[in-house]
């Protein structure tokens, strides 16, 4: 907190004193934002240069583990020609940073990167002009190295960015400055150490729960035992007896506050409450029939050729229904917020992926003016789509207003599992056929309850029909999902690709063709074919129809513009049904790679996290009650399960940098299902592929 404050003071003082980077008044920013949020055009919104030549880089994205702090700093440093360690990132603060739409969808580099590069390139061009005037030479005779502008051939005639800024009181803008071409990059594309590393290995990195303004009370809220269960009676007298406890009760909100979070939690346990029972009657077994019954009619997304014509040419039909369980985001850091009021102005620190969205929600929920709300986002302990919303921040703000003190709300792990916006359970029916020549004759993919993303096959099928109903995005009939659902790392795509890439594999087996060869035969996308071949080479793939007994699996996908393919080797214990993944090879073409080491980390994260939904993770529930409430029963991947992971990033300078936080995870369900099938000949249709389900499939 103090760091940011100091940073603000230093940088704005600099800007004011030095004048070049005049910080424009907040009020002006506000109007700009209110009318139609978009990225500001003025590079001053993103960059400030101090007299010591340090570059302050202000972005509305948040660092939640994905490495955007480093990747974005690299882009700014590259365009400005300053060393990476001279860039100070300030992220996710709605007072200091320009508007941003939220950190998700792996968009930070792909969508925001060009904006930041453009700003930095323009700033550099202005600085170069100023240097030319100062040194009395034309800009073409200048070069920039490490933030120092020097005359070509006369290196002792030079001026540093810091000095340039200090000497001028002008604000200047240039039109149409082009960022560097890929071949001019000196920093981008090389491994860079993460900027947040030292803070994270020393415990100095601040997360929201570490923000403790003087006088903070920790609030624990009473939650119903089941979704849809309304509070009927409450007796807080026993809790009130705990010294130092404050109880706030307003409508359905009952909160117990104390200066120590553990004492507040303990006191909440003394609140006696009764609830009406939940109207929900589904559980994790009956949910699939329930979804099919309650979902709206399927909506056609793609209709190509004629399914009837394709069916007429079919020799072998293959139909299957794929099921996918609800899974939790389960970030290691639970949802947390701190709210502090100061003379009618509200400051909220929150673990949120979307500080500007939260700001507008706070404005609405508390009836405030936009300029009276500031959201600050410290480091996030993981998000994965689960921290798009930040209801805990609205709770904290309301309670702080009632209590007249700063209030911190940190959800317990049980609350985290109860209030999470799960990845939806879903049903995917795939019908397809093979013609005489062993080619796919038609393809029909009907997805219910997950969403549309990546429901269209990556293959060039002549006759296809893709339909979808219901979504993670909401807009579903009430009661269809028994609790909130939302974006979970590559939303909908995990479910759709599990079904389509499993089905493709099953067709290859029916055709008695090697699954890699079968895929290549149906692909028209050369980039995707290339990643498949690259993965095959690294893996040491040799063609054989499945089941070969080797336990080898393959899957591929197009995730926006990124092409990704993976191969895996598994061992299946026929007796216990246990699946062990020995190794995974991923090849990915994500365009220009900003920080290769960072991108590899993201791929490894995708593979590891993906093994969870593939093998062990599933939210159990009954009648509105979430039965998994901690990591003892909700099993996320652990060290013993982690395979060796090899990542190959394909160099593709022709495509702008894409995000790497999502693509590989979409493969993991099908990849492991296909490898299991190759090992033992059993086809798993239901995620996660628990030992019980594996044994059942082996019996069938």
């Amino acid at each position, binding site marked *: 907190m103090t760091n940011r404050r100091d940073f603000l003071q230093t940088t704005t003082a600099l800007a004011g004193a030095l004048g070049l980077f005049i910080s424009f008044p907040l009020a002006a920013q506000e109007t700009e934002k209110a009318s139609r949020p978009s990225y500001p055009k003025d590079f001053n919104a993103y960059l400030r240069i101090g007299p010591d030549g340090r570059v302050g880089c202000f972005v509305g994205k948040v660092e*939640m*583990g*994905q*490495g955007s702090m480093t990747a974005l700093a690299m882009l700014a440093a590259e365009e400005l020609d300053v060393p990476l360690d001279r860039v100070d990132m300030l992220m996710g603060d709605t007072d200091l940073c320009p508007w941003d739409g939220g950190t998700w969808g792996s968009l930070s580099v792909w969508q925001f990167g060009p904006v930041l590069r453009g700003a930095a390139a323009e700033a550099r061009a202005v600085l170069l002009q100023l240097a030319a005037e100062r040194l009395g030479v034309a800009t073409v005779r200048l070069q920039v190295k490490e933030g120092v502008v020097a005359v070509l051939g006369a290196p002792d005639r030079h001026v540093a960015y810091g000095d340039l800024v200090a000497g001028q009181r002008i604000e200047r803008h240039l039109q149409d400055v082009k960022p560097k071409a890929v071949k001019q990059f000196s920093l981008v594309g090389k491994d860079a*150490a*993460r900027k*947040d*590393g*030292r*803070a*994270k*290995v*020393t*415990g*100095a*990195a*601040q*997360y929201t*729960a*570490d923000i*403790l303004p003087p006088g903070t009370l*920790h609030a624990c809220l009473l939650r119903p035992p089941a979704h849809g269960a309304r509070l009927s009676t409450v007796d807080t007298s026993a809790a009130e007896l705990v010294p130092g406890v404050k109880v706030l009760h307003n409508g359905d909100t009952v909160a117990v506050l104390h*200066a*120590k*979070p*553990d*004492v507040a*939690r303990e006191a909440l346990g003394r609140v006696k409450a009764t609830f009406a029972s939940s109207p929900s009657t589904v559980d994790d077994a009956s949910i699939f029939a329930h979804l099919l019954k309650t979902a709206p009619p399927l909506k056609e997304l793609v209709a190509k050729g004629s399914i009837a014509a394709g069916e007429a040419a079919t020799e072998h039909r293959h139909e299957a229904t794929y099921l996918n369980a609800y899974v939790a985001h*389960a*970030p*290691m*850091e*639970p949802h947390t917020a701190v709210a502090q009021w100061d003379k009618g102005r509200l400051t909220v620190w929150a673990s949120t992926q979307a500080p500007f969205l939260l700001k507008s929600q706070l404005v609405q929920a508390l009836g405030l003016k936009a300029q009276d709300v500031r959201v600050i986002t410290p*480091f*996030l*302990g*993981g998000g994965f789509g689960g921290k798009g919303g930040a209801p805990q921040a609205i709770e904290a703000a309301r309670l702080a207003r009632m209590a007249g003190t700063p209030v911190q709300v*940190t959800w*317990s*792990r049980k609350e985290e599992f109860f209030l999470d916006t799960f990845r939806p359970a879903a049903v995917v029916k795939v019908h397809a056929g093979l013609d005489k020549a062993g080619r796919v004759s038609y393809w029909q993919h009907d997805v219910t309850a997950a969403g549309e993303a990546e429901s269209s096959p990556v293959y060039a099928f002549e006759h296809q029909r893709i339909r979808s109903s219901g979504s993670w995005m909401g807009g579903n009939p009430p009661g269809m999902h028994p609790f909130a659902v939302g974006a979970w790392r590559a939303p909908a795509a995990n479910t759709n690709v599990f079904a389509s890439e499993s089905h493709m594999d099953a067709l290859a087996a029916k055709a008695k063709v090697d699954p890699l060869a079968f895929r290549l035969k149906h692909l028209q996308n050369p980039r995707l074919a290339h990643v498949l071949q690259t993965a095959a080479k690294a893996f040491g793939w040799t063609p054989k129809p499945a089941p070969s007994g080797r336990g080898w699996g393959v899957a591929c996908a197009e995730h926006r513009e990124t092409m990704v393919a993976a191969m895996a080797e598994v061992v299946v214990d026929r007796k216990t049904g246990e699946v062990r993944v020995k190794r995974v090879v991923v090849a990915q073409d994500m365009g220009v790679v900003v920080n290769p*080491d*960072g991108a590899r*980390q993201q791929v*490894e*994260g*995708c*593979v*590891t*996290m993906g093994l969870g939904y593939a093998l062990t993770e599933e939210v159990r529930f009954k009648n509105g009650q979430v039965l998994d409430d*901690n*990591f*003892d029963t909700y099993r*996320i*991947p*652990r*060290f*013993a399960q*982690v395979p*060796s*992971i090899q990542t190959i990033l394909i160099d593709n300078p022709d495509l702008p940098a894409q995000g790497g936080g999502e693509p590989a995870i979409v493969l993991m369900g099908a990849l492991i299902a296909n490898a299991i099938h190759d090992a033992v000949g059993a086809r798993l249709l239901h995620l996660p592929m628990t030992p019980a389900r594996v044994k059942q499939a082996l019996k069938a």
Partner: protein
Amino acid sequence: MAMTISFTLNGRPVSTDADGGRMLAFVLRNDLGLTGTKVGCGEGFCGACTVLVDGEPVRSCSTPLSAVAGKKVLTIEGLELNGVLHPVQEAFLDHGAYQCGFCTPGMIMSTVALLQNTPRPDRRQVAESLDGNLCRCGAHVRILAAVEAAAAKGGAK
């Protein structure tokens, strides 16, 4: 009623009047201002809150303050000496063995304890001893590499 509990925290003596039944993690974080220790699950299932008590890793969210009376408690803040990182911290840094970093203090403390007891663990021993430390970001392969590197460099210190 209030009883003073004394122990050594990161090499320095401390005394607190906090209720001995309260869990150590919260006393560290909210009474003593050491917020490097993280609380991820509050019930002993995730390892984010791991600290060392007389050299042994414990889950501070489930260890009452009274249990550390007279003992030596080491937290993530106590590893760095005079601005020099502990070899395990150094190895985590070098190998990018963190993403969001929320599990990192607990991972590092568990590793420090492991290497003190087993200076050259094999991969199975590492996986076993870190099994109760969860990482949702999937930094596992990096963490394994970091632990091995720290061990190779004599990370027990």
